[in-house]
């Protein structure tokens, strides 16, 4: 399980390597949340499909991400969760 939603309005945690299949789960979660927040601190990588769900949903993120690539190139794309 790499997409973890502990509570209904709490941040959605992405952990480890998020795959194509996770994108569908994530999309399902996002459609029911008004202003989704995603925690990337344990995320090592995301599939392109997951990335595009994050972007399309204008998600806010909690960092720093576990992978330097995500932290350097992708985290800045999103609004931080504190906004």
């Amino acid at each position, binding site marked *: 399980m790499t997409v973890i939603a502990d509570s209904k309005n709490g941040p959605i945690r992405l952990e480890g390597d998020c795959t194509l299949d996770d994108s*569908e789960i994530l999309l399902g979660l996002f459609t029911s949340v008004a202003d989704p927040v995603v925690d990337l601190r344990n995320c090592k990588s995301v599939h392109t499909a997951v990335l595009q769900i994050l972007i399309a949903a204008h998600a806010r993120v909690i960092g720093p991400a576990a992978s330097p690539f995500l932290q350097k190139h992708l985290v800045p794309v999103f609004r931080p969760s504190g906004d």
Partner: protein
Amino acid sequence: MNELLEQFLIESRELVQQATLDLLAIENDARDRAKLDSAFRSFHTLKGGAGIVEFPDMVTGLHAAEELLASARAGSRAMNVAEIGNCLWALDQVTGWLDEMEKTGTVPIDAGRVAEEMVRRFQPALPGGSDSAALSPPDWLAGLLAAYPDDARQAVVALMFQPDAQCFFRGEDPLALVSGMPGLLAMRVDEVNPWPELDDLDPFECNLRFAALSSATRETLLHHVDLTNPSAAKQIEIRALSPIRLEGLKFGPTARLILEAQRQLLSHEETTGMAGRVGAARRVVMNVVGRYGEYSDVAQRYERLLAAEPGDRQRAILQALLTEVLEDGQDPEPPVDKTALSPGDHSAATVRSLRVSVERIDALVNLAGELSIAKNALAHAAALARGGTTATSLAVLLEEQQARLERLVDQLQRSVMNIRVLPIRQVFQRFQRMVRDLATETGKSVALVTEGDETEADKSIVEGLAEPIMHVVRNAIDHGIERADERSQSGKPAQATISMRAAKAGDTVVIEISDDGRGVDLLRVREVAFQRGLISATTTVSEDETLELLFKPSFSTASTVNVVSGRGVGMDAVRSAVEALGGSVKIETESGKGTTVRFTLPYSVLMTPLVTVEAAGQIFGIPLEKVVETRRVSAGDISAVGEARIFVHRGRTVPLIDLGSTIGEPGCRLPMDEAQVVVVVMENEMCGIEVDRVGEKMDILMRPVEGVLAGLEGIAGVTILGDGRVMLVLDLEAILR
């Protein structure tokens, strides 16, 4: 070569020529329906011909080009410059094949690669092909560089990767590909289409595109893509970045050749001596860049900028730069194409066969008929003579027939000369393409206007004109014609015009090549002439005399190319070429208005066939009609009789004259085992002429001996060889006396 192939070559060359002219016309006016139809027909007929001679590669390649023309004809859209460039390139390849077939007499067997390239070039433009304009918004690069200015300074390449929407189904992960890219400095992700509501979003359809900056070279990146996801290579556009920005610069074929050589130099795997190679390539590349109008000033700065970089990075930047300019695919200019370099090269090809009007052939047929009647009349005279008719009446009859024959032979000569007459169009039309290519190469806009195309002249004149006209046109475009901005400032139309006019004037044909450029800078010419010691500081030189200085061989040296803002390059070569045709050259110029070069040439020429020989280090011509044969005579077969020497030739004793010591220095020849002898016949007497070497046979236009040579004994005339050397033609009667 079989007749079918022979006919195919003749027709194909004409079709290539026709299609080239049509394409150039379409380039000027995309709505020219008639030209489009004509170009299509030419391609179609070329393809058909290739089918008949069983040349499947040519059929395949031309079919792709024909499809493009057909879609343009169907009115779906106008052809763009790149497509016209591709069509011209295809015609160049066809010409290459035709040349090869002419040489070998068979269809080229290794044409498949070129045919594939043809198909590839024409593919994307076809309906249903990928639309590269939509793939990458034109401003992505600027946006990326602006967003990451620090990374942009370090980056060697920028890339745009737009995966296709269905890529997830193939198990692809574009982000993984980008994240693994070597040297990744910055990345930007954008949506391709606006996001739908989340409820309508298909998570399995890719709607992202990636722009990135990398410090790796294009080759390294492509290698990475190839390993990770080869099918993505088609969706990635890589642009070279460097401190050097050459956007919009189009290199001509020669420049591309030079640049290609530098790329190869840099691609050597051997690292020893790499620093030297990089330095050499850097200087060469910047020299080439500096030759292009607006880049002449910045090239030096670029070179210094590059030189300050560490060796590895210099190499990477140069490689990226070269790859960009040589392969970008943005350049409508076809890749290196030797045939486009010089229309002189085409001459042999295009005028090798002669098309003669039916009327002229009919005139010859009639003459042949009349000659055969005259022959029968002679048979009748012979019969009469045998029958014992009186000598007087026979003489009357023979004189009558002789007069008739004389008239017929005279007519025959004139008719045959007329067959050799060609319209000047044949040489003028070759320049449409050359002017286009040269203008593109120099970044100038030039139109070519021709007048009097149908003016006729002897075949040898028409063929010989291509080279001098080419020099003049090159000069005009390189030096005479200003850049568009400069022209606009002086109130001239941005597009320059070169006009070529031909007209018949009495027994001469006048060819004028004019440009509306800046004219010859007379002051500068005088200055250069003074520096070169051609004139003294105190000489007053008239305008005509100044222009005359341009024809001095010592004036036309490489270093004047850049300093004389007008002409002076190779004008001596122009003069010698025109004089070899029996003509003369004159330049007229008006400061700021332009320059006209005028050739005055004889309408017809009588060519003298000669054989060339060498003696005493010089080249001489011996009229071919006097030569019986050339042979070697061994030293033992030559005997001395008093001061003279003799040898036996076909049972007759023949005197031997040493040309070297007769014309040049006496006794300058070393004793040899064998003598090279040209046996000539003079008034039924044979004579051997000993030479160092027998050269080739050639037809020349003999000119009277003038100036310092005028008093020279034994010289019948002079001629100028193709390489500008003067050759003396021997007066054998005078020598043997």
